């Protein structure tokens, strides 16, 4: 008897199972990184966004060195008798390596509803420039 699996959901589920078996270590490692970051790039800027609920701007420490952006802070423990504690507490630090020189003077950071955005403008000299070529007439 031939079992035709083409319409059955099983092969995909088995694939999924194997994927999960081979991946969990990586996933766990990523989950340990706090806060979660989104990094994006456009023609002019590199933007780093982080989910950091419960901290004010003055409780966050942002340091820009030559090749990296360091984000530091601490999530405080609330006072009282805990019935349930799911929110992470303690000091955290994340380092974002920048492979492009940025204009240090124009870096801007904003914090809106617990989401931090740091906009790092790329240095003028790394942006592609159009060079006009005069065609010599000879």
């Amino acid at each position, binding site marked *: 008897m031939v079992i035709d699996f083409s319409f059955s959901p099983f092969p995909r589920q088995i694939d999924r199972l194997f994927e999960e078996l081979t991946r969990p270590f990586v996933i766990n490692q990523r989950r340990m990184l706090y806060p979660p970051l989104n*990094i*994006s790039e*456009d023609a002019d800027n590199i933007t780093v966004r982080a989910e950091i609920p*419960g901290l004010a701007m003055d409780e966050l420490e942002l340091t820009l060195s030559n090749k990296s952006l360091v984000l530091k802070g601490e999530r405080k423990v609330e006072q*009282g008798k*805990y*019935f*349930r504690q799911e929110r992470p507490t303690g000091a955290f630090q994340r380092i974002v390596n920048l492979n492009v020189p940025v204009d240090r003077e124009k870096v801007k950071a904003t914090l809106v509803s*617990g989401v931090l955005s740091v906009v790092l403008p790329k240095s003028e000299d790394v942006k592609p420039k159009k060079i006009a070529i005069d065609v010599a007439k000879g």
Partner: protein
Amino acid sequence: MATDIEKKETGSLPRYRPATDILEREDGFHLFLDMPGVAKEDLVIDLKENELVVGGKADHPPVEGERMIEVEFGGGEYYRAFTLSDAVDQEKIKASLVNGVLEIFMPKKERVLPKRIEIKAG
């Protein structure tokens, strides 16, 4: 079962249970919910009998012209329900949203507050 999985994946936004701390202080119960990215307008708190339902939406739409290099978080719908104890004074529940953390304060009813009984000397 397979269709259930597909439904979750094709839905517009994934649903999360916000990480929550529940604390008791002398004045009552304090709930802290991590809901980063949720604006006040996108937050709904409903109280039905003994159930408090919190829902919120955080949307991070892709920005035109931006290329994502690293993605560790995304938008989602936060949803969580709590059953209230009888000791809570439902009329006086207060909520505030600061820096992506929703704090809900539930004061205890008068009769539950500890009272010191004065002793009169005869």
